[in-house]
């Protein structure tokens, strides 16, 4: 069975968010809620939820048109329509009686074999199904999404003894492939996996912060560091989740957990927090939380609360000795450092890791599922067991013993070993018995991190590597800082273009950094510009153009596979590929104007060519030129892969992978599919209108400058772009090939890089991470 249509019942934040993600997957979804008393518009709740989706930030919809996949309705008039859907998700408030009432109504109309799931986070499946007919229980599961459903990758699925395997399989497959979720199968225990450990961690950190008299800022830097999330930390996370939710989560866990569970020791809500909730300080959604932004001075000042006094004061960067890089980088040193910071880090981490280890086999018997849950659901860079491996199992055990903390059986079983190992070409993890169990990836999942365990790179330099991903396909991985494109990456592309024709068949550009690439490394260019090294700069520009051109015209297929940001020079690398297979969460754009430049590694040329050769374009060259001009001059960044297609950063034939873990596999398949009868792209030849078009494009900008929406210098930059896109000093009879356009790109780039204002923009962006409007 496959899932083609879905109904979501309950149009609150979670319900509508889930509906949006299903709509993002291109499926029809019916969104139902109750009819409010005396409502004129009986669908008002679901309808206004859809309106909110269209305005949500971060955006819940990957494309505005996806809202059309969602049909609003109500539980009285549209109940019968549930008969048409394959999957019904219940996302109403956490009250058993209401849920069970609803289930009865659903069961009366749903089609046989359709799947029903609840998004409950507090009620066990066994409780939900109590008293319901087997025919219903067979099809009922828990699907626990995390907020916001589009962006949080964890999906916990809980099935019961009566649940049919086919329902589990169908739903897992759908949520994995179509919704892009990392599915983790959990036991039917309170809080499942992520919230059980996550809530324990947050509570422990909060109570230890107060016990040791640390500031909120200090605690966050310390608590997030081992997990690899030093920017949010615990208090930042609670602010994000909503402080008012904490008592509810605690309450439900306290009532359902065994009385011997260690959670009870940490299940205290401090008075200061109770007071905050009462006063509306519920976190980011409220007046502020542990942190708030104070705008009274006209500037945005980040403040944090003093947990002793409840007063806010300007946030101060922590200066604890234990946070100095020399210490904090070495986990063992950090956790045993003799100051409040070291004491706190050890206290929170040792308790959290021991608690996690003690939950096996109660919440699951596989440590990988637990690590995965914490990584996907709480954004930890390392899961609890990966962390213990990083700290050193034996060191951890010894330190626990020396501080008289008890050692959970699983941890004892790990003595002298590691939780994960790579053995006989297989990834393996430790089980409670002390044996290792082999971990396999599902079909269709190919990860560079796995490949790296098994082989050496074909080629490697400081910023990029080439990996053999099988079937004659090479993967070019960027690994420079922020994956910025630098001379080493360009050299590696040249190498790939050199060696593939002889020994391989195709190339995929892909990496597993948090962003595909944030752009070219302009720090070096700025330095070169500051010392007036103009020929060197022009050579750098030319070298990027040559490399990307060679990539484009290579006699083998090249597939770009971005995830996260692909900006500037990173975007340009994609524009020169034969095809793109993008993760749904790809943010693609040419943002060079922000730093006072224009795309000059073929980006302006490729965008012009894409719009000029677009079969759907209107008559005459101007609409196409204007579109490319608009996208580049406003530094448009698509907010999803779907949007990127509309902007022609991606072509209609390019692919989108909803699941991040399936991206490389899909990209490789795309490359292999292009092999048969592959011919490089035909040479570009365009006729361009010349100075009249340049004037027309500038006219549009002038009004922005006059109205103050753009600066005069924005106008200067736009004019250089207009010069390229109009073909400079040409007339309509003249044919322009690729090299002509590249020459114009270089000309514009060199004009702009010599301008003081461009240099100020570049410097400001590099120093502050923010654009400068000058």
């Amino acid at each position, binding site marked *: 069975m496959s899932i083609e249509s879905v109904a979501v019942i309950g149009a609150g934040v979670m319900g509508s968010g889930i509906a949006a993600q299903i709509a993002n997957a291109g499926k029809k979804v019916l969104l139902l809620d109750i009819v409010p008393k005396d409502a004129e518009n009986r669908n008002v709740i679901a309808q206004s939820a859809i309106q909110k989706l269209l305005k949500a930030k971060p955006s819940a919809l990957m494309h505005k048109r996806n809202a059309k996949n969602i049909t609003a309705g109500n539980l009285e008039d549209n109940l019968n329509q549930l008969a048409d859907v394959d999957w019904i998700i219940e996302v109403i408030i956490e009250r058993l009686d209401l849920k069970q009432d609803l289930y009865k109504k659903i069961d009366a109309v749903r089609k046989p074999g359709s799947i029903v799931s609840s998004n409950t986070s507090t009620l066990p499946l066994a409780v939900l199904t109590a008293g319901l007919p087997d025919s219903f229980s067979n099809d009922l599961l828990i699907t626990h999404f995390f907020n916001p459903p589009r962006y949080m990758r964890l999906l916990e699925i809980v099935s019961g003894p009566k649940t049919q395997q086919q329902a589990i399989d169908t739903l897992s497959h759908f949520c994995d492939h179509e919704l892009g979720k990392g599915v983790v199968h959990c036991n039917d225990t309170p809080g499942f996996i992520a919230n059980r450990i996550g809530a324990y961690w947050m509570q422990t950190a909060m109570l230890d912060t107060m016990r040791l008299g640390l500031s909120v800022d200090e605690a966050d830097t310390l608590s997030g560091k081992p997990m690899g999330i030093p920017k949010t930390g615990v208090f930042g996370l609670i602010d994000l989740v909503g402080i008012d939710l904490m008592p509810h989560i605690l309450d439900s866990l306290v009532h359902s957990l065994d009385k011997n569970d260690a959670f009870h020791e940490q299940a205290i809500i401090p008075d200061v927090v109770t007071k905050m909730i009462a006063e509306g300080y519920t976190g980011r959604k409220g007046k502020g939380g542990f942190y708030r932004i104070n705008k009274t001075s006209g500037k945005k000042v980040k403040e944090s609360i003093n947990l002793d006094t409840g007063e806010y004061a300007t946030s101060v960067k922590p200066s604890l000795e234990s946070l100095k890089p020399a210490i904090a980088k070495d986990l063992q040193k950090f956790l045993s450092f003799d100051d409040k910071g070291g004491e706190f880090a050890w206290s929170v981490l040792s308790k959290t890791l021991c608690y996690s280890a003690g939950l096996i086999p109660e919440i699951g018997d596989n440590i990988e599922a637990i690590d995965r849950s914490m990584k996907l659901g709480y954004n930890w860079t390392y899961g609890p067991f990966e962390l213990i491996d990083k700290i050193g199992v034996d060191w951890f055990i010894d330190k626990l013993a020396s501080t008289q903390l008890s050692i959970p059986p699983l941890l004892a079983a790990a003595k002298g070993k590691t939780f994960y190992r790579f053995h006989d070409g297989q990834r393996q993890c430790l089980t409670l018995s002390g044996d290792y169990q082999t971990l396999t990836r599902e079909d269709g999942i190919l990860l560079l991190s796995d490949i790296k365990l098994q082989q050496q790179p074909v080629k490697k330099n400081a910023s990029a590597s080439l990996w053999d991903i099988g079937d004659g396909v090479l993967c070019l991985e960027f690994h420079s800082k922020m994956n910025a494109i630098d001379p080493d990456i360009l050299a590696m592309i040249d190498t790939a273009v050199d060696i593939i024709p002889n020994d391989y068949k195709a190339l995929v550009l892909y990496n597993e950094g948090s962003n595909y690439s944030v752009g070219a490394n302009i720090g070096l260019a*700025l*330095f*070169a510009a*500051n*010392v*007036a*090294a*103009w020929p060197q700069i022009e050579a750098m520009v030319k070298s990027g153009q040559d490399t990307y051109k060679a990539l484009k015209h290579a006699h083998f297929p090249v597939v770009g596979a971005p995830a996260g940001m692909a900006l500037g020079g990173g975007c340009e690398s994609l524009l020169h590929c034969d095809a793109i297979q993008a993760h749904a969460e790809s943010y693609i754009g040419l943002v060079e104007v922000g730093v006072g430049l224009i795309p000059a590694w073929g980006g302006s040329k490729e965008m012009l060519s894409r719009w000029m050769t677009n079969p759907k374009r209107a008559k005459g060259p101007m609409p196409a030129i204007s579109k490319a001009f608009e996208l580049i001059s406003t530094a448009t960044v698509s907010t999803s892969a779907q949007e990127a297609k509309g902007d022609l950063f991606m072509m209609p034939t390019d692919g989108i992978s909803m699941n991040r873990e399936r991206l490389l596999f899909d990209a490789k398949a795309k490359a292999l599919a292009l092999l048969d009868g592959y011919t490089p792209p035909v040479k570009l030849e365009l006729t361009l209108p010349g100075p009249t078009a340049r004037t027309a494009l500038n006219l549009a900008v002038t009004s922005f400058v006059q109205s103050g929406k753009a600066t005069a210098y924005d106008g200067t930059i736009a004019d250089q772009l207009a010069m390229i896109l109009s073909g400079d000093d040409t007339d309509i009879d003249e044919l322009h090939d690729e090299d002509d356009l590249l020459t114009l790109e270089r000309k514009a780039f060199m004009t702009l890089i010599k301008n003081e204002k461009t*240099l100020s923009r570049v*410097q400001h962006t590099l120093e502050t991470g923010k654009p400068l409007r000058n």
Partner: protein
Amino acid sequence: MATFKAPVDDIKYLINEFLDTSELNGNPMFDDMTPDLTDAIFEEAGKITETLLFPLNRSGDEQGCSIDNGKVTTPDGFKEAYQEMSEAGWGNLTCKTEHGGQGLPHYIANAVDEMMISSNMSFSIYMGLTIGAYNAVEKFATDELKQKFLLNMVSGKWSGTMCLTEPHCGTDLGLIRTKALPLEDGSYDITGSKIFISAGEHDLTENILHLVLARTPDAPDGIKGISLFIVPKINIDSEGSLAEANHVSCSGIEHKMGIKASSTCSIEFENSNGYLVGELNKGMKAMFIMMNSARIHVGIQGLALAHTSYCGAVVYAKERLQGRALTGIKHPDKVADPLIVHPNVRRMLITMKAYTEGARALSTWLSFKLDVSYQSNNPQQRQQADELVSLLTPVFKSFLTDIGETVTSMGIQVYGGHGYIRENGMEQYLRDARICRIYEGTNGIQALDLVGRKLPAHMGRYLRHFFHPLSAFLEQHAEDKKMSAYIQPLAKSFTRLQNATLFIAQRGLANPDEAGAAASDYLKMFGLVAMAYIWSKMVAQILHDKGDMPDSFYDAKLKTGLFFMQRLLPETGSLLSNIMSGSDNIMSLGENQF
């Protein structure tokens, strides 16, 4: 024999013709600087330094300072000269007129300073230190303190010092131990030992005002916990008159290689009264603000001694008869030809001349930029000038003091064996010059400042203010045939400097030792290119818009400049090779292998 002729003509040429002062047009202080006024200043300065200070130079070196029971006596004649110089206002050229100073810009005052140093470096130190102390008090102290101290400093009645170094710390001032305990009346109780204090104790003035870096009891560790205090040798009562002694004593003077007439003292503060200057714990910030002008001053010392050595060498090379010219007898009437006929002696003399005149032009130009950084009405212009001066200060300090040593050593060489004899006066310049490479931040520290602080500042922005005008200058003269003999070598060395800069920026980021290993060679390369730029600017102006100096003056400039471009500037090639060879050849030898 040792001779000193004040370079008044060269200075007049630089100020009246060479220097483009348009950046400060309309600024009242500068509009007053007409040639009538400034020529008179330079001529008077030339006279007094030639006739009053230079005659005390060698005798001061021979006699040195002496200490008896904590009292330091300066060489004979110093006290009288100090009084005469002070009364004539030579000690307060840059001090504000409202405090009784002359209110002159730095590019004028520094030219006078050069002559004072040239004629008698030890003597000039006493006057220079007072100016340093004046600047600190004037910029940072409260009005009350200014009222108490400034007038008498400016008049020369009281002198000043800078007390930074302690027995265990010099370069690393974060380690300072001198204590400052706050007292109820807002003043401080200062206790500690300072060493290497120039003009720390002497008999030239009735009182000495020490500017002391010290630490209050609960100050943060390191450099961020240091404050600046003014501590008078003798307390001053509410009437402004001298009162009781302030428990400041001199426990000894150093026996030095050079500048023997300058007293270098160990000073003990024992529960001395001190007054906070500027903000608490911001003492180093105050030091940093004065650092550019202080370091430029030391660079000028290198230039000044080079000049005096050159004066002596030229006279000797023309007088001393020895051997015959290689191309045949030039002076048949004499028993032998003078030394100056020999190419190798000429090589030394013109090297000395090219470095000295190049340094003087650089000094004039940079001093003017310093003025722009202080005085321009345009904030952007002020900032750019400040960044340019900050970039070039370590280059100037090191490169010119290196030149000071090179040239004074050559001066000895021209004399042969007689250069090594004390009575002939030439060796004193080398001994005096040697300290300039060490104090006010050793030249090694300057090189680190350049590559570690100034280069990376704002992603290389400071560099822009030097490289862009130079690049524009090259472009402007690219087709200028008359200039090509100068422009081509400049362009070549400029490219080398660009490449070295990018190399250091790239490599130094990955491994700071790479930047450290390249630093000194890079600084020298920078200095050579900066000097070549200045020489080329002089040449361009002479070729296109010559002034009223005699033709032979301009002709000499063109020839000396060409020598610089052809014989001295090419060293940038070997320096680039050094830099590009990386740090391994320096760092790979293990500590225990030394």
